[in-house]
């Protein structure tokens, strides 16, 4: 029997993100699976009433909130204080929260304050033998473990795309405002730094991840490197296909070393061992080479295709659904032409 706290930050407009709704869906399902358990909602943000109304029909026995202008900003000291207060007010034994930079930063410290434990990057949540059990990856997505804990409270941060989002009727919810003593503020968030919209290459919501490998910068059949054309082809494809860009480590390292390579490529694009493991329905890898460890960047990609001159490429063999043995420059030139010719 668990007291489950669904704990989420609100967006700028006071509503909940898609990932938060997925976590609520998982929390509701788990509450039903664990006999005698109850669900409580906890909301944090500058404005929380819209979120409370949004999930009014979720079946939570209570809706707790901490609201204030200081909580508009994603900041450790205030977020941790708010989450700690909500966990204590709820008497939560299990705290389910959406993974994201904000909660990933704050909730591990909250677990320490509460004398509990925390698991992040959780990809599945279920009841096993009447106890909650989670699944997460170890060694950078190279092995998967399932575990349960007896220590409470237990904080679980659920990754996006791992559970169906809760959907239900909105209503008028009554929020119990929980008082919080915030610490002196020594940190202020002054803004976001992002490439201009037309130069943004990372699109988490894109249907397709386009992975570029170091092969784009190597000498081609004419004995010359064509980095400028590679840039043009890749950026052109990203724009027309609205794809997100990933890269192998070798390619971003080349960029970092100041070589004449793809200027828009940064470490933020890197997928794999020391990069990200993005989630997209489809992935297209081009000119990528690498042994098994580097392919962890593919772990959460649904359909996978690759273009490579080497039919035995270890990046693609056994990891992609289709491997096209072809010149990526020639293929992507034609892909861009076909996409541009499509009616909008």
């Amino acid at each position, binding site marked *: 029997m668990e007291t489950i706290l669904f704990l989420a930050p609100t967006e700028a407009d006071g509503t909940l993100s898609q990932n938060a709704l997925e976590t609520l869906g998982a929390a509701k399902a788990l509450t039903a699976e664990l006999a005698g358990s109850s669900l409580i909602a906890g909301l944090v943000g500058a404005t929380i009433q819209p979120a409370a109304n949004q999930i009014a029909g979720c079946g939570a026995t209570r809706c707790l909130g901490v609201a204030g202008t200081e909580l508009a900003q*994603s900041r*450790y*000291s205030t977020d941790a204080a708010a989450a700690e207060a909500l966990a204590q007010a709820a008497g939560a034994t299990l705290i389910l929260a959406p993974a*994201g*930079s904000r909660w990933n*930063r704050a909730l*591990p*410290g909250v*677990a*320490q*304050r509460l004398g509990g*434990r*925390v*698991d992040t990057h959780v990809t599945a949540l279920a009841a096993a033998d009447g106890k909650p059990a989670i699944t997460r*990856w*170890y*060694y950078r*997505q190279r*092995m*998967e473990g*399932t*575990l*349960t*804990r*007896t220590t409470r409270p237990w904080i679980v941060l659920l990754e996006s795309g791992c559970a169906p989002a809760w959907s239900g009727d909105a209503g008028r919810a009554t929020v119990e405002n929980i008082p919080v003593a915030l610490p002196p503020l020594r*940190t202020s*968030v*002054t803004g*976001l*730094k992002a*490439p201009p919209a037309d130069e*943004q*290459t990372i*699109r*988490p919501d894109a*249907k397709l991840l386009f992975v570029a490998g170091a092969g784009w910068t190597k000498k081609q059949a004419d004995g010359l490197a064509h980095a400028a054309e590679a840039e043009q082809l890749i950026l052109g494809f990203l724009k027309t*296909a609205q794809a997100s860009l990933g890269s192998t480590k070798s390619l971003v390292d080349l960029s970092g070393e100041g070589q004449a390579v793809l200027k828009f490529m940064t*470490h*933020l*694009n890197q997928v794999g*061992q020391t990069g990200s493991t993005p989630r997209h329905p*489809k992935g297209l890898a081009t000119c990528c080479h690498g042994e*098994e460890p580097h392919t962890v960047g593919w*772990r959460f990609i649904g359909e996978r*295709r690759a273009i490579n001159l080497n*039919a035995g490429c270890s990046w693609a*063999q*056994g*990891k*992609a*659904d*289709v*491997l*096209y043995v*072809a010149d990526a420059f020639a*293929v992507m*030139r*034609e*892909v861009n*032409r076909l996409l541009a010719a499509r009616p909008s």
Partner: protein
Amino acid sequence: MPSYHIVVCGSLVPDPLQTLEPISTPTGPALKNEMMLPAMLDPWAGHALFEAANLAKQHPGSKVWLVALGPKAKLQQVLMTIAQKVPFELVALDGPASGFAESAEVAAALAGAINGITGLDKTRLLLFGGWESASRGTGTTMQMVGEHLGIVDQFQGVDQLTVRSDGSFDILERVEGGKHQVSACAGAPALLGWATGNLPEPANNPQVGMLNMRTAMPALQRAKPIKVTNDGVAFAGVSLPRQRRDTRIVKDLTPDAVAREIVEWITRD
């Protein structure tokens, strides 16, 4: 100009090019032949160490400590590769560096070691580490260490730290969508979990290596044994994912035909 006491928390991980295989042991999951696997400093902890050394160099009077928990023999092996990179003083803890070790217990051990550093001025403390490890990969240990030490100005996924002349600083943290959140902090003490940062790996410097090893070897000899019990956690299993897909190799299509097939595929719902 401010000067800092910079403590970097970092441990070792198996070389990423090694094949890893999980096994079950009476104390929980482990890696097959774990002690035989070549090890390296955790990549993000390495970035934190290089950023710490660079910051200390720019702010005379600063000092860098590396607090590392791992099997003593493996720590010594890893030191041989990193000691020539940048100057630091080692504080070693002899215990597991496993990805299955409980982060709360690791954090308590690290915090205890930091509290034991002679001459550490916590008003000038910058606590660095990787924002995640390449082993457990939870991104939870540093926050807990910070809580043990009472540091509530914490930043994760840091790619840039810019110190102003008054000791305050601006920080870029990775957030969703390939963006950075920009924060201004009044100054030390603060905790920064580094992502990649902006620095290349420093070249080896034998003089730095000799200087580091003078203090590192005694630090290894007096490394305090740490036992991680993993109390309260029970693994139902750890396994390798199914790796193989039945890859269809397409060798005989022209680039134009491949392009048509790809466009049809990516535009299909």
